[in-house]
């Protein structure tokens, strides 16, 4: 997390310690790349922390965490979806702190250079989006570099766009989780993305081979694509980059002028924003149960996930969104972030299923092969459906 986030968090810790003499909070910051692994090893080793920022539903299935239902303060108005993600058998097992949302990030300089108007108020239809992408795909006469209208990666940032047609990787049907793309609607929605690469040719042809959103982000920030789909952190990152150029910290670089738009309107008939998931805090069971300590830990968690944190300056810096309805207007005066927060979205990457990560990995690898035209959409979906259904059947 950013220095601003840590500063707000530390002030909450300090205030908590002052209000509870004798209580000392030992905060350990881990990296995003291996923090979850270290946490899992701590749990496996019988020395879990009292409280950790994690969305790993395996901890819920393993019985390693404590339900929070009885501890949620009465005035807290969490969005239902932020609680449902961690709900098992009527009990909620994680405190939702922030939402990660995303949309289409637009390089306004390229739009201006090509004379393409920006989508009004960030809203456009799929056909308008494709037409713009086609006009924004050209060879730069100065550098002879091919510039593409759109770039995405074959991870959830990319295939998550199918929500515009009401289709997701995993969907609830008659109370049972199914592989959402193994349906006629799913195939049809995936075809939209496939067409961008192979029919309209508005993306780099090797986009299916991208290993992560780092690849697509590099293409966008190097000015080789006019649009990309990314999460809210990208807005903060671009603002920081532009600020570092403006104040002379970064020399010899040009700022990236950008704005944000919603996902293009699909079969659902309304603009949407991607919700990749919920950042949450879980309270872990300890080898020796101390109910008084647990009460304090729950109180601390409620502070970390309460209005003071969610309405602080930390959220805009990090590019994340509140989970409390009463805090959801923090971006009223920020046009770019407001675009992402004002519309509905489906949770793309987080499911209350123990095998969700494995399913997502299986699908991402298959989607790579589909986009690279190594296998047809229908065959690719069929190839992976059996494995995914098998994993879903183990719930």
């Amino acid at each position, binding site marked *: 997390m950013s220095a601003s986030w840590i500063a707000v968090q530390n002030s909450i810790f300090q205030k908590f310690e002052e209000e509870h003499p004798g209580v000392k909070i030992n905060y350990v910051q881990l990296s995003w790349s291996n923090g979850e*692994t270290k946490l*899992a090893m701590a*749990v*496996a080793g*019988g020395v879990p922390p009292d409280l950790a920022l994690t969305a790993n539903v*395996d*901890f819920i299935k*393993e*019985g*390693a965490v404590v339900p929070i239902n009885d501890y949620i303060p009465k005035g807290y108005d969490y969005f239902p979806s932020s609680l449902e993600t961690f709900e098992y058998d009527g009990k909620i097992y994680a405190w939702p702190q922030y939402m990660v949302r995303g949309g289409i990030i637009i390089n306004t300089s390229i739009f201006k250079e090509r004379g393409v108007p920006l989508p009004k108020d960030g809203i456009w239809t799929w056909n308008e989006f494709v037409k713009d992408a086609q006009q924004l795909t050209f060879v730069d006469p100065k550098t002879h*570099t*091919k510039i593409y209208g759109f770039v995405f990666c074959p991870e959830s940032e990319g295939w998550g766009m199918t929500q515009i047609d009401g289709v997701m990787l995993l969907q609830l049907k008659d109370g049972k989780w199914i592989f959402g793309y193994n349906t006629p609607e799913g195939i049809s929605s995936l075809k939209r993305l496939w067409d961008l690469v192979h029919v309209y040719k508005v993306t*780099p*042809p*090797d986009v*299916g*081979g*991208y*290993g*992560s959103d780092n*690849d697509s982000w590099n*293409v966008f920030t*190097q000015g*080789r694509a006019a649009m990309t789909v990314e999460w809210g952190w990208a807005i903060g990152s671009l603002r920081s980059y532009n600020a570092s150029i403006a104040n002379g910290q970064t020399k010899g670089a040009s700022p990236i002028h950008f704005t944000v738009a919603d996902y293009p309107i699909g079969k659902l008939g309304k603009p949407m924003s991607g919700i990749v998931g919920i950042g949450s805090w879980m309270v872990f*069971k300890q080898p020796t149960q101390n109910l008084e300590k647990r009460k304090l830990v729950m109180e601390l968690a409620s502070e970390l996930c309460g209005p003071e944190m969610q309405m602080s300056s930390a959220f805009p810096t990090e590019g994340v969104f509140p989970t409390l309805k009463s805090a959801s207007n923090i971006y009223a005066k920020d046009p770019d972030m407001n675009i992402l927060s004002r519309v509905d979205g489906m949770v793309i990457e987080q499911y209350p299923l123990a*095998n969700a*990560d*494995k399913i997502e*990995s299986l699908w991402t*690898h*298959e989607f*790579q*092969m589909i986009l*690279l035209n*190594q296998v047809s959409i229908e065959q690719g979906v069929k190839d992976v459906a059996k494995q995914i259904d098998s994993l879903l059947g183990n719930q």
Partner: protein
Amino acid sequence: MAIFIAFEHYSLTKGILRSNFVGFNNFIRLFNDPIFHAALINTIIFTVVTVPYGIVIALILASLINSFSPPIQSIFRSAFYLPGVISGVILSMTWIWIFDPSIGLANMVLSFLHLPTLYWLHSPTTSLLSIMLSGMLMAPGGSIILYLAGMSRIPREFYEAAELDGATSFQKWINVTIPLLEPTTLFLLVTNTIGSFQIFTSVYVMTSGGPGYSSDVLGYDIYNRAFNFYNFGQASAESLVLWAIVGTFAIFEFRRFSKVVKF
């Protein structure tokens, strides 16, 4: 610990002693998993290509360096060994830039030679090749050092005797140098085979095993199962399988080639 966990449906909260025993279930699931098959085949291809290449190149380079005076040898020894002390992650990130299809050095060279450019890391047909090239295009510094050490111990009299028989430099290399370096070659064959079967860093950084599973290898697959999917049982089973494969290769190489090696 891996031996126990490989036969369990390991639970984070229950630990080794209280997790459910599942017999050979993890192994059966593993052997029926197409991802494991892909990783195994890729790892074998990687080993079969890179190990002999590395040994031959090291032998040739060491032979060339050995012909120089000691001060010059030191310069070359340092130059060839230096990449070995650089972090594998940093090297892999450098190779990502080299293999970038649009702005990378590799495609610039191909374009300059009027050859078709490739998608390198982004194509299932070239992703494993890219991983192999990233290792092969760096001189095997450690192997060169060992060969130079071996060459320094070859008695001068053997070369003098060969010269008296009218041997050319190439004949001396073939008939004196290479046979007397067989202990070193055997050692490098076994250790490099063990090392190549454990390839991980470059795959983790450069391709994450993709596109598809075209560059997936056993080391990365074990890591994925354990630390991304928390399937410690199957990961442990796969690590035991890897251990068995490496052990088999090492024993085979020792038995096959040590017969001609006189210690």
